[in-house]
């Protein structure tokens, strides 16, 4: 039982970090970023390139993937999303653009990094063993703690910095924020860059444990969508809650339901549909987001 909870917490911390980036982008621009999973994979590959091929320390790789993804996110927002949002008749048109970006990133990853599974050697060796009740490798613990630390930093940034306040104001009411002198174009760009950066950071963290490959992007996006649906789209606390809930459900489901075959995700999806029928806006979301 302790083992299941520990696994759930570890998974949840990563998931929450992925969902945070997605929900940030959604709350600022009303864009459902289909390319989020691909950004995550890209971040993983950047870390892999820096650590394994250039032989630099892991922390440099993590930093590099954060910077690369932040720049990429800012560019994508400024040159692709902002013009389309301005000129399109319907908000949803950005979905085609987001899907196009997702395909494009897939293509770039395929050309630059190939289709092979890539991983980074363990950064810490050894296994934590508490009386055979919880068994967990140290590197997983380290990554879990780092993820939680990043979440804390992110919340603090959103709550106490000027940029964070501006972005929260934008998410609440675009028009009012603009009237109060918030530079919408600039903070939308920063927000997108920040969201992409978070995806890159998670990719960089997880490449040490699970590795990354080309095919991971799409499924990761779907999982991130699930999390922000559970918690409520566009709400930061909701994304964190959604991440931990999904991590827990996966961990418990894989243990409890393993006797019935591979139906964990079927059960999760089905219960999510029932949950959303009762509470369409998720746990903490605004109605009609």
């Amino acid at each position, binding site marked *: 039982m302790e083992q299941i909870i520990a696994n759930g917490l570890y998974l949840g911390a990563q998931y929450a970090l992925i969902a945070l980036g997605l929900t940030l982008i959604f709350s600022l621009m009303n864009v*459902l970023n289909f390319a989020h999973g691909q950004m995550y994979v890209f971040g993983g590959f950047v870390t892999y390139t820096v650590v394994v091929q250039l032989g630099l320390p892991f922390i440099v790789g993590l930093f590099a993937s954060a910077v690369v993804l932040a720049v990429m996110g800012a560019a994508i927002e400024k040159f692709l999303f902002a013009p389309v949002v301005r000129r399109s008749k319907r908000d949803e048109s950005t979905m085609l653009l987001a899907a196009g970006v997702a395909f*494009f990133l897939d293509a770039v990853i395929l050309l630059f990094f190939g289709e092979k599974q890539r991983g980074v050697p363990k950064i810490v060796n050894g296994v934590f063993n508490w009386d055979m009740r919880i068994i967990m490798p140290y590197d997983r613990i380290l990554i879990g703690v780092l993820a939680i630390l990043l979440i804390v930093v992110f919340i603090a940034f959103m709550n106490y910095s000027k940029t964070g306040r501006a972005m929260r104001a934008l998410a609440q009411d675009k028009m009012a924020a603009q009237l109060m002198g918030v530079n919408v174009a600039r903070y939308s760009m920063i927000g997108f860059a920040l969201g992409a950066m978070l995806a890159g950071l998670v990719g960089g963290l997880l490449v040490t444990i699970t590795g990354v490959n080309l095919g991971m992007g799409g499924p990761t996006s779907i999982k991130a969508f699930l999390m922000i*649906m559970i918690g409520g789209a566009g709400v930061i606390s909701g994304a964190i809650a959604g991440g931990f809930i999904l991590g827990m459900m996966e961990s418990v489901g894989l243990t409890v339901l393993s006797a019935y075959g591979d139906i964990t995700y079927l059960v999760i999806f089905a219960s999510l549909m029932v949950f959303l029928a009762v509470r369409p806006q998720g746990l903490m979301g605004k109605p009609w987001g």
Partner: protein
Amino acid sequence: MNTKKLLGFAVFLLAVFVLVPLFIGATGRVDFFYTLTSVALLSVGAAGVWLTFYIGRINIGQGAYALVGGYVSAILVTQAGVPFWLTLPLAGLFCAAISVVIGLPILRLRGVYFAMVTLVLTEVARLSALALPVTNGAKGITSIPLPGELSLFGLTIIPAFGSLSNPRIGFYMMAVVLMVVTYLVLWRIVNSRLGHLCRSLQQNEELSASIGVNTAYLRVLAYAISSFFGGIAGAMFASIAQSIYPSSFVVADSVNFMLYCFLGGLGYVFGPMLGTLLLYFGWDLLSIAKQYQLLIYSGVMILLMLVLPNGVLSLLDKKEGRA
């Protein structure tokens, strides 16, 4: 105006039924038959997605209904021995029935929430196909017999596909007929009272409800029609491929259905047809670019979106505006 429309329609029919087969016959690219059959069937599914866009919902779940439709037809043909032509409407009706049950709760959602739930629906369909005993799991259902002959009062309307010398042309004709009928139906719906009501839903659901439009009924109806199209398309696909697997229609297919609608233009009935043709056929043609295929494809898609954010058919708008 009306004669102009009829003329355009006649030209279109001539093109798809006579010119395209002639062209393929002349160039010898017989594989285009298969590609164009896929385009026709995918555009039937996309027509359904377009209808849900028309009531203001983003539908990324058409793959689920295509999969269900394919399985219903395949199971009925292989296990119950029902003739294929009967299973085609049955598959559509089955999908429509499911979509009513699923749609009643989820159509209360809007915007991205609805989009994400329908996306999850595709995964649910795939996982169910893997888990249910009747679908034969990951092995899928294979060697489905080709459609037999369809006759009415002893008169053969469609000959058995197995007896045809070139079943590819048969499938192409069948798919195109299906596409033409679907779009006629869609066009009729849009230009009817129902279409006007749907438009009011797209613009402001509360407002139309306050005037006395039965919004709950309308959106379930539109969703059911949409799923009917999805089911038919899936059933046809299964019979052409003579097999169906849980991975026949996945999330990527659902997303593609939505992209076809976006690219063609959400404000135009024939938008999804054009979008399907451009995207699917373009992808096929780009296969000569080998490893750069995806790069060029997605690059063009992004460019199109930057230049024409309201769909390719919005080009027509500009012309009218200038004149």
